[in-house]
């Protein structure tokens, strides 16, 4: 037990400062925000991540948002287990046809007002997989999308800046 406390103390706080990106910086990042999330959500949003058919690359980087370096919860952004608790759906992957109904139902289960962020190149435009007998391609082909965070996969920093930008966090 003492070893554990010693390691925790020795590790200290590794969480990094993050500058909130300005609009033009977001543009440079390639993050196209269609509209800002309503002010009343500023400071706290609940996210439901939905893998609609991705290769798992985006999931790994979304996971990283919870590691001690990024610690996204300090910004009031947390991941929830049910769409019924969510404000935002973070959708990855080209939407496989086998996931189409599941994604639609998840969208319907999310209470209004809600926002959908398409994460990764596949979710943005179909990526390497495109549209086929097995894939619907971009998320926007299936449900309305409010913002896109491109990348293959987007880095945690890009994800974080995209989310904060969407929340309209002012520093």
């Amino acid at each position, binding site marked *: 037990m003492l*070893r*554990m406390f010693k*390691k*925790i103390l020795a*590790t200290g706080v*590794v969480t990094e400062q993050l500058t909130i990106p300005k609009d033009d910086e977001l543009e440079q990042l390639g993050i196209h925000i269609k509209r800002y999330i309503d002010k009343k959500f500023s400071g706290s949003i609940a996210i439901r*991540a*939905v*893998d*609609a*058919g*991705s*290769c*798992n*690359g*985006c*999931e*790994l*980087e*979304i*996971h*990283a948002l*919870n*590691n*001690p*370096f990024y610690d996204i919860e300090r910004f009031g952004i947390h*991941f929830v*287990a*049910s*769409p019924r608790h969510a404000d935002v759906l973070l959708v990855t*992957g*080209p939407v*496989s*046809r*086998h*996931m*189409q*109904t*599941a994604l*639609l139902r*998840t969208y319907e289960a999310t209470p209004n007002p809600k926002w959908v962020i398409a994460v990764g190149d596949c979710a943005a435009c179909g*990526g*390497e*997989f*495109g*549209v*086929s*007998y*097995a*894939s619907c391609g971009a998320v926007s082909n299936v449900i309305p999308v409010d913002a896109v965070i491109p990348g*293959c*996969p987007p*880095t945690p920093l890009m994800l974080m800046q995209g989310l904060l930008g969407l929340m309209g966090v002012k520093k």
Partner: protein
Amino acid sequence: MSHSNWTANFLIQVSTNMTVTHIDIASVTLWQIESYAWQRFAELAVQQNLRWAAGWAEQIDKQFFINACFEKHGEYVLLRTIIDDSNPKLPSQATVYPAANRSERHTQDLFGIKFIGHPDSRRWTRHQAWIEKNYPLRKDFPLQGTPVGITPPDRDYPFIKAHGQGVYEIPVGPVHAGIIEPGHFRFQAVGELILNLEERLGYTHKGIEKIAEGREPESLARLAGRVSGDTTVGHCWAACMAMEQAAGIEIPARAALIRGILAERERVANHLGDIGAICNDVAFVFAQMQLTRLRELWLRTNATVFGHRLLMDTIVPGGVACDLSSASCALIKNDIAELRMELAEVILVLDLNSSLEDRLYTAGFLSEEIAAAFGTLGYVGRASGQDFDLRRDAPYAPYNRVTVKVALETQGDIASRFWVRYKEIRTALRLIENFIDQLAAGDLRGQWKTPLAGSEGLGIVEGWRGEIISYIRFDADNKIARFYPRDPSQLNWPALEKLVLNNIVPDFPVCNKSLNGSYSGNDL
């Protein structure tokens, strides 16, 4: 391990039972038999303890080529039979090898080939995206298919039911509570005890095999790197190896060493993440925080040195797309020294923690017999006594230049899988140092040669989850005719259905994480 030449003796034995034509292709021993003997071959093979490793089909003109890949002592045999496309059927090997079960169902769904006597001929990869009696991998099936409106859910899949007082069913997924891939699990339980688990995968089926057709090598490598995002190096390497065999080219020594470094870096990153996640699933957050921190540092070095955190697109046909400067080598070595020190501290804490011991030991037990029957691979197999690692048993460049110590445990529980992973990290760190020491100046990429139409290659590498088999056939003009990647998950997933039995439902997440199958790599 003894490398007795079992193929010669086995060929003699098989030849007394059926006609075997030995065909020379560059990369592998290929035996062609008549389709009626397909199952008989499997019976003879299982008697000789051959492992069933992969199976796939291919349509060429009016014929189907059916392939199955077997392995023993690191030596591979590719078995092939050719059948007419008018009424395609042949005896099932799944009756002999449980490992062949889902693979044959995949072939049945995508090609419409019937495996006679298959113990479970329900659809597997097909849900409702295309209708019955349509077969996407047949040449006359259009890439776009014929989708009509919204694809309905696969409501009527006939799951196995349990009956009796107090037995109830828990459906889970495809959308899971965590940030993970989609799949469906159907539990039959009494109280908290799991009586039966049935997996229903296929939700992430993206038509990878179909969209691979007609690609050029570079583009195919990019696609292979996205078969399973956590195994981008492994799949990309296997596919490139297959293409290079088909083209008859050797990659430069420096490129091979860099590929080795990339693959070992991928192994370390995934094992770090998984060890933390296993502990997190039994509510020991200290481990999760420490190990995700170490993983993040590791990925940042990937980004600095190779330009991509997950190392995507670093391997290209003919070599690698990135070089290592001496400064980068020094940075990597320095990182390794630090990681070793930190891991030693953290792992000691985990080892001495009684609550972890309580949750991880004896839970999720997979016996050696079941692991062998399903051909379980990688750390899952090696935690259940399956002493196989390509890097030692069938070493390819650059592993032919080093000695690989293979981690092995025989307890078969979650703790064993945990410790195998830890030992594999340690081995991987040594290998990276070793490869760096051997780096000599040289080219990064060999000259590509357009392969002849019909050329084949079979790339087999030890990915972080275990053996990856990648089959490639070229068409004319440098175009891909057939790509089939067999992720180790395909053989490991069925083991999960067995190892959760008699565990409690709340232990399912940790059981699942200890195996960590890829959904995307399985569904294709």
